[in-house]
């Protein structure tokens, strides 16, 4: 069966510090991978998606970047965090041509 792992679960970082969130998927190959951000009490904002290694599409120009160094690994990064980067970050995957997305358990990021 397929599983998605996302870590860390919570993170408190000072303004100006770097960020690296990692997401991995097991039990499948060549998945579509997604990074979403959810502000408190708000909806889901698509940040990046990837249909293959090294292929990254950005939805919103911002302080973040994404990379896919391996087929089942998706990384969200920032060189210098802003207060506005605080939120709940979710990784998700789906099969190529598949239906519903499967989300990870999320990372609660607080920038102080």
């Amino acid at each position: 069966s397929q599983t998605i792992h996302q870590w860390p679960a919570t993170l408190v970082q000072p303004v100006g510090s770097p960020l690296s969130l990692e997401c991995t998927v097991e039990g499948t190959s060549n998945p579509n991978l997604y990074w979403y951000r959810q502000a408190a009490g708000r909806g889901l904002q698509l940040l990046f998606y990837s249909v293959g290694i090294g292929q990254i599409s950005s939805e919103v120009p911002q302080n973040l970047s994404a990379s896919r160094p391996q087929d089942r690994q998706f990384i969200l990064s920032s060189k210098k965090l802003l207060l506005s980067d605080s939120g709940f970050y979710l990784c998700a995957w789906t099969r190529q041509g598949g239906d519903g997305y499967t989300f990870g358990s999320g990372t609660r990021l607080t920038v102080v």
Partner: protein
Amino acid sequence: QQQVKQSPQSLIVQKGGISIINCAYENTAFDYFPWYQQFPGKGPALLIAIRPDVSEKKEGRFTISFNKSAKQFSLHIMDSQPGDSATYFCAASPPNNNDMRFGAGTRLTVKP
């Protein structure tokens, strides 16, 4: 750009009552319409989904009603229970499934 509009933003229902959440979409190319359930601090989980070739899909106490001509779909939760208290998101995606759009979410509270 918001292509899926969801209402209400919040909903309070008595135990045993019917919860109804509505969504409307704009893009006629959408062909997959899932609903996700999210508990606090967790990632959204796929609850039920429908394709436009049927007007209704039922799974247990959860039913999706779909109106293709009106470009609307809704989630009905029968015999609502306190354990159903969560945030619900509707979504819609085109055939390539790379661009799923989410509604803003509905926070459902079921009072005992």
